[in-house]
């Protein structure tokens, strides 16, 4: 009995002291998704356009502190409104947030320099943001208009502690429509720098197939060329050796390139955010055949008449095939320049394309094709079909004219030979130059 009493006393004693220790049961905190209020018209803050702030920097030609430009004593903030287009999750974008002034058809882009990583978590692509200009500065950073903080006369990164206040998030996330453009517009800077662009029908050049975004065994940044199927134009994407995807092979098909248009001084560079920005899944547009004529070794040069022959020539860094029937005076010539066999057995809609120049008066060069040529020797024994290429008519200049895409699908199924037949007479001998010859899929 006494024992039971003792045990009960013990248990009650423990019970009286049982205390809770807060541990373990944590519920997900409520995350309030209220955006910045800076743009509320009721507050009367000053909204600026990208153009205006960029002009502030251009006018000064050096670092501009916004506190010297925007109203200071009225208790209002000054800001610009932009949309995030960059994503640093993949590691190719470093300590930067790129914004443009509209989700579609932007007129300008600005880079914000921040001392923070993984900004993608809060500043995701499409997020509408307000950059509060008070306390910040703007400068031309090697050609890129950048907002940061002033550190003497140079631009420094915005501290991670100040980021929430300097770049305020709105609760809106818009869909960014990349600006469709061409390699020419990109390289020629005819579209605003700092915006998100897309170029269709791009691919990795044949020689770079299988290359990775950057180097596997070091952390250097690497420039990669991408070539357009439409106009053979080349753009450069620059990939960081610290990116997560540096060891990923660039996709080998043809497709749309999406990237941030940027530059380094006068060199245009594009930054992709992730491997999927190279949406290269379609069939490639590699030429079935190409020739830049730095030698004619692969071609057959056959002279029917006359001492002048086709030869490989160059001017500056351009190489081309050239012939002139004129020495001292015009001569009689018939000269054939015949390509090696071009395999069209798997082609679908092959076209021929080349650049040509005609200078001085004389007969036009003829562009011919044949499937019967033996491959070497006298071409005149084979049957040739004339091709309707666009030829240079301006005999007064050396400017190359493109032939346009010449349909050679009649030769489908086997090998085709392309020939340039030059004729000159004593009445006239033009100088003909042929360059950048390709046979490709339409």
């Amino acid at each position, binding site marked *: 009995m006494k024992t039971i009493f003792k045990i009960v006393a013990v248990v009650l004693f423990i019970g009286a002291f049982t205390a809770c220790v807060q541990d373990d049961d944590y519920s997900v*905190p409520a995350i309030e998704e209220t955006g910045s209020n800076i743009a509320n018209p009721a507050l009367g803050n000053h909204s600026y356009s990208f153009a205006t702030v960029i002009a502030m920097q251009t006018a000064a030609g050096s670092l501009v502190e916004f506190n010297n430009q925007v109203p200071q004593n009225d208790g209002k903030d000054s800001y610009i409104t932009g949309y995030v287009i960059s994503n640093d999750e993949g590691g190719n974008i470093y300590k930067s947030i790129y914004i443009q002034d509209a989700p579609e058809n932007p007129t300008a882009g600005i880079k914000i320099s921040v001392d923070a990583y*993984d900004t993608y978590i809060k500043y995701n692509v499409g997020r509408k943001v307000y950059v509060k200009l008070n306390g910040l500065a703007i400068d031309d950073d090697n050609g890129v208009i950048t907002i940061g903080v002033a550190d003497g006369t140079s631009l420094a990164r915005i501290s991670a502690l100040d980021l929430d206040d300097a770049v305020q998030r709105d609760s809106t996330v818009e869909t960014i429509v990349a600006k469709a453009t061409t390699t020419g517009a990109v390289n020629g800077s005819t579209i605003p720098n700092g915006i998100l662009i897309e170029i269709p029908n791009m691919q990795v050049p044949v020689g770079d197939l299988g290359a990775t975004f950057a180097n596997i*065994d070091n952390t250097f940044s690497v420039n990669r060329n991408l070539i357009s199927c439409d106009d053979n134009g080349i753009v450069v994407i620059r990939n960081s050796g610290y990116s997560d995807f540096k060891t990923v092979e660039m996709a080998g098909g043809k497709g749309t390139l999406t990237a941030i248009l940027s530059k380094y001084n006068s060199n245009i560079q594009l930054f992709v955010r992730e491997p999927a920005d190279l949406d290269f899944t379609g069939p490639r547009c590699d030429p079935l055949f190409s020739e830049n004529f730095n030698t004619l070794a692969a071609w057959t040069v056959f002279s029917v008449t006359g001492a002048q022959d086709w030869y490989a020539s160059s001017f500056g860094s351009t190489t081309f095939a050239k012939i002139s029937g004129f020495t001292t005076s015009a001569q009689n010539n018939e000269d054939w320049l015949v390509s090696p066999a071009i395999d069209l057995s798997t082609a679908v809609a092959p076209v021929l394309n080349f650049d040509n120049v005609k200078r001085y008066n004389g007969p036009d060069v003829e562009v011919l094709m044949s499937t019967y040529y033996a491959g070497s020797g006298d071409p005149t024994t084979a049957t040739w079909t004339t091709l309707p290429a666009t030829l240079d008519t301006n005999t007064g200049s050396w400017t190359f004219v493109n032939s346009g895409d010449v349909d050679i699908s009649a030769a489908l199924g086997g090998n085709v030979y392309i020939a340039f037949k030059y004729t000159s007479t004593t009445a006239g001998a033009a100088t003909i130059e042929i360059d950048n010859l390709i046979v490709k899929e339409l």
Partner: protein
Amino acid sequence: MKKTILTVLFGLAALFTMHAQQTIVKGQVVDGDSTEPLTDVVVSIKGTALTQTTANQGTFEFSSGLPLGEQSLVVKKNGYLPKEYTIIITEGKTVDISTLILNEDIGEAEDFSITLTDEELDSDESVSSNTSGILQSSKDVFARAAAYEFSATYFKVRGLDSENGTLLLNGIRMNKAFNGRPQWGNWGGINDVMRNQDFVNGSKANDYAFGSVGGTTNVNLRASSYRKGTRLSYASSNRSYRNRVMATHASGLLENGWSYAVTAGRRWADEGYAEGTIYDANSIFGSIEKKINEKHSLNFTSIYTPNRRGKAAGMTQEVFDLKGNKYNSYWGYQDGEKRNSRIKEVEEPILMLNHYWTISDKTTLNTNIGYQTGHIGNSRIDYRASNPDPTYYKKLPSYYISNNPAFNNPAEAYNRLQEFLNDGQLNWDELYASNASANMQGYHDVYVSYEDRNDDTQWSFNSILNTEITENISIDAAVNYTTLKSHNYAKVLDLLGGTGYEDADKFLFTDANMLDPNRIVQKGDTFKYNFNLLSTSYDAFAQAQFKYNKVDFYVGGQYGNTTFQREGLYQNGNNPTNSLGKGEKLDFTKLGAKAGLTYKISGKHLIDLNGAYIQDAPTMRNSFSNSRESHNVVNNLTEVKTTAFDASYIFRSGILKSRLTGYYSKIEDATEVAFYYGDGLTGLSDDRAFVQEALDGIDKQNMGLEFGVEAQVTPTIKLKGALALGESVYTNNPNVNLSYVNQSGPQNFDYGKANLKDYHIAGGPQRAASVGFEYRDPKYWWFSATANFFSNAYVDVTAITRTKYFALDNNGIQIVGYDEDVAKELLKQEKFDNYMLVNLVGGKSWKIGNKYIGLFASIANVLGEDYKTGGYEQARSANYTTLLEDTQRPTRNFGPKYWFGRGTTYFMTVNFRF
């Protein structure tokens, strides 16, 4: 005064028993409160080999070999205050002391030290646990000073760790195979039933096991050994926990042969001494024994003390200077509560069945079966975005102050300083928000809370034989067999509001388990790594103890075998051919030999000599270079050899007790494994990587002096002092091997030798001194104050900066501008400042009828001194260039991380016994 009366009384008693022809000394020992006879009381005659242990009736009788004249009868029992009686033995007469009274040692002081011992250092990269838990039951002057006064500084007795000590519960070894240490958390909060301890110092002979060189303690948990009664206690403190309740009831030996004891308790705190350190522990103990007959007794013991506590982080000098020693970077506010990201949870119940067979009055055989299961979990945050640690070097002001003007940013440094002072804690809300934001964009979680788990299941079987061959010679022998399966894995605890976490290497994107690629894990899932460590160990031990008048000696030996094997359950993406299934079976032979003698120059002067040689398996932690990801074993893994000697001079008089010991021990062929992120790693194919560093062939040495003295200058005042002068150093240059994984796969580098020779072993102070006094008032109150001085504590050095690669650049040529004198300065081992701690302790007890009330209070570090208990150099700056650059900064980015001792703390308990 008391002594004189007793002397006279016994003298009279002797006269009245003059009839007997034989010379006899006999008597009975009873408990001062209950007047019940006391068993297991050791009665001996000083200066002779005569000693007996009382049995059921509490009686003893010496009938031969008795010296004549004035002798001292010493009466001792664990848990009771010892007594000495002067008796006069006359030839042919009987000395009969029919009621020898022993009073229970209310045990206040023992609460104090147990509180200290069940605190491990709360860090993953933990500095050693000391042996104080093993020492606390000793009555040796020096050992008591080490246990009570020195242990808060992580002082190591003779430079040895708790892995060099042996802890037994009811004869079963409790040191864990993983790191060789006892897991104090497995029996926390049941102090009342842990008082019955048998301790031997160093490698001395004990009756249960071969032991080791750092002392052996056996805790007796037999139900019948507990004093009948009930004890309730409440304690209040500001150390690891704030409150403790404990209730114990023991039945004592009942008439039907049964006895039982139960303890239940709870310790808790919303916050211990350091910020954010929650403490939540429950304890339950039950022991039940049936005395089958005079010869056989069967005991069943169960211990279950689950506990959870929040850990506190080590910090650099910069952080300490800004925030003080209560600062803890592991916690942050959530819902207004402090939530700690690193919680340690220990839940490992122990069950034991013990059989005691008194084969004859000279021989006993004790057979035990022990079973332990459960788990240990250590939680933390894993991240794929920015490091959430508020003390990450890029978040501290020091990062923004540089001698290089390009990197010097005082404005930002000021910003960061304010941020850190005003907040400086983990931002849980930010982790949840980041996960939500990432999920919204179609990414997986960037933060997750998970725990590293060790789920150990262990069976132990042993049998211990003790037999008295003759009066002077006894033999002890034992066989042990242990088998362990340790399941190690990571487990997702909390997705922090997210939808799923990628189970892949965050730098190399390889799968954690190629058998289940591209896996996204949810709460409760196992992930990251998953493997078993299987271990089997057996050994046999035998020793002989000889006790004569002038000399006692012993000799003992041990032989056995331990095997380890890793069994991978995941095929790790970084080590696809070397991680799945069973790895190499590692086999080690255990050997041990020891001997010692005690020479009694006289009753007052003793010389004690001991020597031991032990060859044992390395711990599992030091055997595998990266057990989470591969089967790889540390190079040159072999048995660790320990050799130890000690020689002591012991002086004991009526008022003075002292011991002076010189000791020496060396440990050879040890291995150590560490993990860190290195920067400036010359000689590898990457100059920055997360490496596993394995050292092999490490030789260490400890030697020094111990001195302890206690002088009972008046009946109430005792002066005490202790001094430890030790030196623990590395004695050779071990081999360094670095391994890591990069894009090309696993890499392995022989980094040559680390010039560690003559560097000091890290840890607590290697020199300590204590002076103090103790006052015991006859009115049952007592008070003690000590002043304690500590010096010669050293930081843990990194091995790679002491290799030849420190001076070389990536081409293997000496770094341009390398200055040998500067290098020597950079590589000097930091010695921590000396400090003094003052401790006060006191208590009072009241007796009301047959009930006791006791009150005990202690205040440690009264002066509130700041001191470092340990620290380690960060290996981040791995070569001359990066280290010089870091040290030249006004405040270092990668300075050593330290643990600081607590300021003034108290512990107060009130107990009630009836």
